[in-house]
């Protein structure tokens, strides 16, 4: 009797140890503060998104530890990407990427890290863009603007970011498709781009509907085209660029999360689990609506494929743009 008892106890204990051991090796739970790296300073687009997501994740109790946003600005995403690459294998660090993380290494020789070196986790958001003009300008639709540009080549101007930014790439694609030509003036901040448009110093800009929304409501801006596949829910009367007869590839502005290289499988699964649940919450849907983002949830091999395709697309467009492509 006694022997069987002991054997039984030993078996139970072994099973418990083994299973807890297995569980321990299969599940990851963060045990200290999580670092969320962004490539903008405080107040920049990525920074605000990361802070909002950190807040919402904590609100929905999807993560047990605090998420701390760490700003690593410089050279676009280069400094942030380099920082993440140095944190190889670090389990408590993630980074918030945007499309520029893919394009920047293509044109900057010093950038020694590409998005393939990092571990993709999830794509969360696709930011649509629209073309806006001043409300009292004579351009009621894209055609008006194109014709005016054709009549006065290189006289009209568009405000935007660097020449490798989405704004300019869209401009180059549009110019190629329509044969019209207009200038491009770079401004470092969205505020300046908008204020120059409102001041009449430039004639149009590519802008996110969330930024444009209030100006439209106040009657200062008019949106003449949506750079999306389908019409935007918030702007149902604005035809897409395709509907207006201009067929160009649409460059998505994607935002999502990735991790440093060499991160163990369990960590990736943990984050995928967190964001899986997060994506379904009402607070996330509300946030998407408030900011007029499109839900671009994508993970795993689909996400890797997205990065690859985007890299190829960007390389082609950049080369056409005349930018020095170094990778």
């Amino acid at each position, binding site marked *: 009797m006694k022997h069987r008892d002991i054997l039984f106890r030993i078996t139970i204990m072994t099973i418990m140890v083994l299973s807890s051991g297995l569980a321990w090796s299969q599940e990851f739970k963060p045990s200290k503060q999580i670092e969320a790296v962004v490539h903008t300073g*405080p107040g920049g687009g990525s920074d605000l998104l990361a802070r909002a997501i*950190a807040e919402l994740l904590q609100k929905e109790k999807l993560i047990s530890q605090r998420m701390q946003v760490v700003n690593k600005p410089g*050279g*676009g995403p280069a*400094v942030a990407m380099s920082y993440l690459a140095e944190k190889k294998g670090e389990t408590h660090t993630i980074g918030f990427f945007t499309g520029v993380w893919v394009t920047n290494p293509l044109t900057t020789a010093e950038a020694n890290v590409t998005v393939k070196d990092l571990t993709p986790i999830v794509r969360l958001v696709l930011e649509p863009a629209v073309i806006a003009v001043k409300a009292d300008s004579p351009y009621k639709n894209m055609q008006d603007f194109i014709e005016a540009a054709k009549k006065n080549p290189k006289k009209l101007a568009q405000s935007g970011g660097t020449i490798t930014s989405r704004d300019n790439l869209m401009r180059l694609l549009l110019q190629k498709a329509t044969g019209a030509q207009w200038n491009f003036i770079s401004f470092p901040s969205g*505020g300046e781009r908008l*204020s120059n448009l409102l001041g009449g110093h430039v004639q149009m800009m590519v802008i996110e509907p*969330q930024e444009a929304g209030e100006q439209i*409501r106040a009657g200062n801006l008019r949106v003449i085209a949506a750079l999306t596949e389908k019409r935007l829910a918030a702007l149902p009367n604005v035809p897409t660029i395709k509907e207006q007869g201009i067929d160009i590839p649409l460059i998505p502005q994607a935002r999502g999360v990735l991790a440093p290289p060499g991160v163990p499988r369990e960590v990736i699964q943990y984050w995928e689990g967190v964001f899986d649940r997060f994506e379904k919450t009402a607070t996330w849907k509300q946030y998407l609506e408030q900011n007029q983002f499109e839900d671009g949830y994508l993970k795993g091999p689909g996400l890797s494929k997205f990065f690859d395709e985007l890299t190829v697309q960007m390389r082609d467009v950049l080369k056409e743009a005349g930018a020095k492509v170094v990778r």
Partner: protein
Amino acid sequence: MEDLGNLLLGFSVALTPVNLFWCLVGVVLGTMVGVLPGLGPAATIAMLLPLTLKMDHTTAIIALAGIFYGARYGGSTTSILLNIPGESSSVVTCLDGYQMARQGRAGPALGISAIASFVAGTVGVLGLMLIAPPLARFALRFAPPEYFALMVLGLAMVVFLAGESMVKALLAMLVGLWIATIGTDLFTAESRFTFGQVKLLGGVDFIAATVGVFAIGEVLVNLESQGGAEIFKLAKGLRNLLPTLQDLKDCRFAFLNGSVIGFVVGALPGAGATVASFLSYGLEKAVSRHPEKFGTGVIEGVAAPEGANNADAGGALVPLLTLGIPGGNTTAILLGGLILWGYKPGPLLIQEHPELFWGLVASMYIGNVMLLVLNLPLVPLFAQILRLPYYVLYPLILGISIVGVYSVNNSLFDVWIMGLFGLLGYLMRKLDFPASALILGMVLGDGLERALRQSLMMSQGDITILATRPISGTLLFFAAVILCLPVVRKVRSWRFEAIERES
């Protein structure tokens, strides 16, 4: 009349115990953040944003705005006492403020800084209340040529910072302009002068460079003599711990100057408080009866820039609240906060949510009063820091510099930059190159090049666009006048000397 009613509404919102409490918390926190170099209000506001989700929204913006303009009060403290700029907009305060501290007038410097900040801050709120929409519309008329002219005007101040040798000042300025080019070019995304370093792609961090040149450079100069020279004359008696009536009289114009320039420049998206403080300092020197004394410890040289960086806070809120356009980093976070709380910042914000706007405006009046009441009595306390024996003071300065610079981006690289610029600052002091010209070049370099290239893009290469537009033409005219004056003076004095030598 309608505005008066709105203002009363605002006060009724601002004077509730909860809002008063959080206003106090905001301004105190802001002052502390401003005093410590490196840690900036932008990062602090961003950190506190999540906490505000649980608050009433008007309370939240009152608190966060309090941090924003409160920091402008605190920034001058270390600038005056230790020659360490607490905020980038307090760099100019180092020039005369620190010299005043060395002459035993740290108290009056700190005091006038608080008073000027109060006056200008209040004017800024008045401006926000009364002329925000028309000012916003005026600001929209500023296109790149106007920004260029503004920067040139600022650089013309180099002529005033020249002190003795204009050539040396120009050389220092050119080096400063060059430093501003380091990093990724905004327009073409090409990198310049980065020596292959990823960390230089964002350029040289401004705080790291200025703390290095001013604070570290100063310490190195002082360490030349063993036993540390008697650097600080200590003030005797309470009378010398606060500004005198004469001081206040001297600063009459500085108060006005700081208020107006700070507020107007603050309303221009993209031009920051640092630019405003330099312009205000330059203007003060231009109209002064004793311009050559600037840089040796002139009290107006503290009052003008300190006023400017406070009025700038009010000005920066103009485009944010009337158009939904953030002027800089900190206002961008405030914008983010507003969006997070569910508001839609834009031209209709004031009409649709008057209690938010007017409550904020009213609380800013109250906040400025709180800040004055808090800061003035602290002046004698802070001034006691200078009584520390130098062998404690210098390690203290070095320590604060390292910590402050590191805390900006959690970057050791920045600390290295600070060290290098420290050596540069020391050498410049020894060789009589004005450090302020270097810093001026760094501050304005970015904006200058950008505005020039943008203007040329607008005009398709036609450079006359800069002179033919009314606003930019006027500003450039002033700049030309300022540039010519000392040259005329110098030429006259050469001829004078030549004539003397002959006879």
